[in-house]
């Protein structure tokens, strides 16, 4: 989608502004978060593209800290919901309650914690599927419908969810429809020894680093607009479609391991996510066009939760990232 009225000077100014804002937020967050620049960058890219992120990692890696730091750096409303098995959908989206006002009793909609700009869904896989499904409309339509009344959420709206990949007792794996709504699924790595020492230095003192606001919600919306204007050449765009197409085992040209270990491939939302993220990557790289390298660099984060492994794949412990890399190799 090309804006023919946009002058080169204005485009250059937009691109510079994007990179400047992005770098400012990233640098601010990284004052507290140590050793996870890629995770931070991907979270920011998702926010710049108005996408949601699923953070996966063992407890104590700073997932919650990352999200709270992000909320502070962007200066947006922040809400946190600790997902538990007894959590109900109404506890998230809100409910109609009986209110007596001026001697008159009536039902009023009591907003839930989802009415915020940045929602931290902590340990999202501990809630029941019914409760998890309460987020479907919220994440895709950015609206809430209760008792037949639809209420739009404030913009921007992001869901940053976390889940623990180790514990399985009392957890409910996210359904495919829910997973598909996350733009990225990021794996939070354990810090190295050096990084751990740095973490101790930063957080063990009397005054840990304070995260201050360096951007606003409107800045994120503006960044989203800028990203969408980055052009992409047709043959490069075809690289995205071929990439997503080859995640399907029944497709001609799909690698052998994909045919063997994948039950369902990625959805069109994956292609949309890859396009938006690769545009963002191109701007961050100082370019005004998307390259296949940009696409490949965001492919794993965009596809790893959208490729449903077969029983054999699960039994063999196949890593979807390896399949993504295999597909990328087959396209070169």
């Amino acid at each position, binding site marked *: 989608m090309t804006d023919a009225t946009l002058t080169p000077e*204005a485009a250059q100014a937009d691109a510079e502004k994007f990179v400047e804002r992005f770098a400012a937020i990233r640098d601010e967050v990284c004052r507290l978060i140590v050793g996870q620049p890629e995770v931070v960058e991907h979270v920011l890219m998702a926010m710049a593209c108005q996408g949601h992120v699923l953070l996966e990692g063992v407890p104590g890696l700073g997932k919650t800290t990352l999200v709270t730091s992000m909320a502070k750096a962007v200066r947006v409303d922040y809400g946190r919901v600790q997902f538990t098995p007894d959590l109900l959908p109404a506890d998230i989206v809100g409910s109609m309650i009986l209110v007596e006002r001026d001697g008159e009793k009536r039902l009023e909609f009591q907003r839930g914690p989802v009415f915020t700009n940045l929602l931290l869904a902590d340990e999202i896989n501990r809630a029941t599927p019914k409760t998890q499904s309460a987020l479907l409309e919220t994440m895709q339509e950015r609206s809430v419908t209760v008792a037949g009344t639809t209420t739009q959420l404030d913009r921007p709206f992001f869901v940053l969810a976390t889940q623990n990949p180790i514990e399985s007792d009392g957890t409910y794996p996210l359904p495919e429809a829910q997973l598909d709504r996350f733009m990225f699924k990021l794996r939070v790595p354990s810090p190295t020894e050096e990084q751990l020492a740095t973490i101790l230095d930063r957080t063990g003192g009397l005054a840990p680093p304070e995260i201050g606001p360096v951007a606003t919600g409107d800045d994120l919306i503006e960044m989203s607009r800028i990203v969408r204007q980055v052009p992409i050449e*047709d043959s490069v765009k075809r690289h995205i479609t071929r990439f997503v197409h080859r995640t399907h085992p029944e497709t001609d040209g799909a690698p052998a391991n994909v045919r063997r270990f994948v039950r369902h491939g990625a959805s069109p939302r994956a292609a949309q996510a890859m396009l938006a993220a690769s545009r963002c990557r191109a701007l961050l790289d100082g370019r005004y066009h998307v390259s296949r390298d940009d696409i490949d660099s965001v492919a794993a984060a965009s596809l790893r939760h959208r490729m449903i492994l077969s029983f054999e794949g699960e039994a063999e412990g196949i890593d979807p990232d390896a399949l993504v890399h295999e597909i990328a190799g087959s396209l070169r």
Partner: protein
Amino acid sequence: MTEQAPKPNNAGASVREAVDAARRIVNRRLLVRSLAIACTAVGAAACVAAASFAIAGTGVPLIVYAVAVVLLAGTTAALWLACRRDETRVAATIDDKFALRDGVRTAVAFESASDVGGYETLQTHWTRDRLCEIDASKLVAPPRGRLLASAIALPVIAMLLGFAPESEAVKRERAQRADTIALAEELNKGIKDMVEEELASADEEEAEHLDPDEVRELVDKLEASSEEAELLRQYAEMEQELASKAASLDAASLEGLLAEAAAQLSSSPESADLGEALSQQNLEQAARELDEFKLKAEVSEEALDRKRAELKKLASLAKRLAEAARKHDARGSRASSTSTNSDSRQATSSANGDQARDGRVSEGDAVDREMDEAERLAQQIRELEEAVREAEESLGKCSNGQCTSSDLDRLARSSRNANDSLQRMSDSLRRSSARRSAQSRLSRMASMLSRSQSAVAGQRQSPFAGGQQAGQGSSDRQRDGQEREDGQGTELAAGAKSSGPSQTSIEEADSGDGVSGLRGSATTADFARQFESFIERPDVPAEVKDGVKLYLENIHRSPESDEGDDSKEDGSDA
């Protein structure tokens, strides 16, 4: 070979122009590279081909190099067409080679687009800035190292191998093949001329036996081959055909009857000339002599004495001929019983094959035909004898003075009958003369083919190689190189008179043990040659060989030997 790097960021130069300039450079390099690869591949193939010719001792034919050049051009063109790059591929190559992250291909597409925005403009500027820093000559490396060395060395080696000389064996073989072709052409022409001469000199009755169209068709089948084996096969095949044809005209039974008649007639002075003609097998003369025995005197009372004398002479002739016919019949019945036994033995053979069966049928037809001729002649002799007997009876009545007009009429009728019988006999003799002449012609043709085979095999000189025709001796005029009278061969080699080698030795032979008779020796030689050539053929089954051997022995058995056999049998009976 260094190429000047394009300056895509020249003032006003677009990305597409820069890519186009790079494309030309890339495609030129690819053309050179394709040529080098094709030189290597075709050069290697040419080396192998040339080496194989050189090892075989034959010179490398020019066609090898012509094919190599065509292959080189074709391979170069095919390789270049397959790997040459258009604008899109060159843009991708530049992106990959200089890590421009699909910038060039994107810029090319944006420059081709109708509506572009600020980002597209920025992108093309960004790409142009990068393009000015690249060296397009690095996109495709020129051929060097092993590829360049092999592309030069292999064709050179192939060309050097072309100077390898032919081996002596190959030269000899080539000369031999040329000689064989020349000899084959000479032989074929000579055979054709000889056959045409024979056919042209044959009269109408002989031509019926010769079947000139079939003979000419056999001659037309002859081809001048460089392979001796092929030539031998052709000549042997044609010789076999002609020999078979001549054999089909053989009439041993009739010959036996005529020989018997000659023996009987020679003992009488009145018929000695006829007997002599028959013994010399001059059947034409014999027919004329037979005509002399016709009753010429008028049937009248005044000419009875002359009639009686003619009739006496004719009666003597008829008697002797009848005696000869009876003897021949008696011998023929014994021969037929022997032949029947032979046929029955052959019939019991299990693996005779089609060819042998066909040959037996053909020979059987010939035997039947000649038996018919002999039977016919014997019948005519019996008719003559009957007519003479009637005439003698009629004349006997007239001699008693009781010669009535009816007796005279009867005498005249019987005289006509006797003359008719004589006429039929002389006609038979003339037909036999024509058949024998045709058989001789076919035998001569077959003999010529036999000599041609010997010439091809190197056992003797070509039967058509120079020299005078039969009956023409050399003369001083011809030896001096003057033109021949018959116009054949305008120049003859001149030589010094009496200076050539002379035949001075005389072969010694035991006296008294030779067989005289030119025709007999020729027949024996012809029989031996046919016999050996057939018997020695590896594709003929042993049973057929035995049958043919027996058959040939039977048909060539001389009357003397038969008589000897008869006397032996008589003796044994006694």
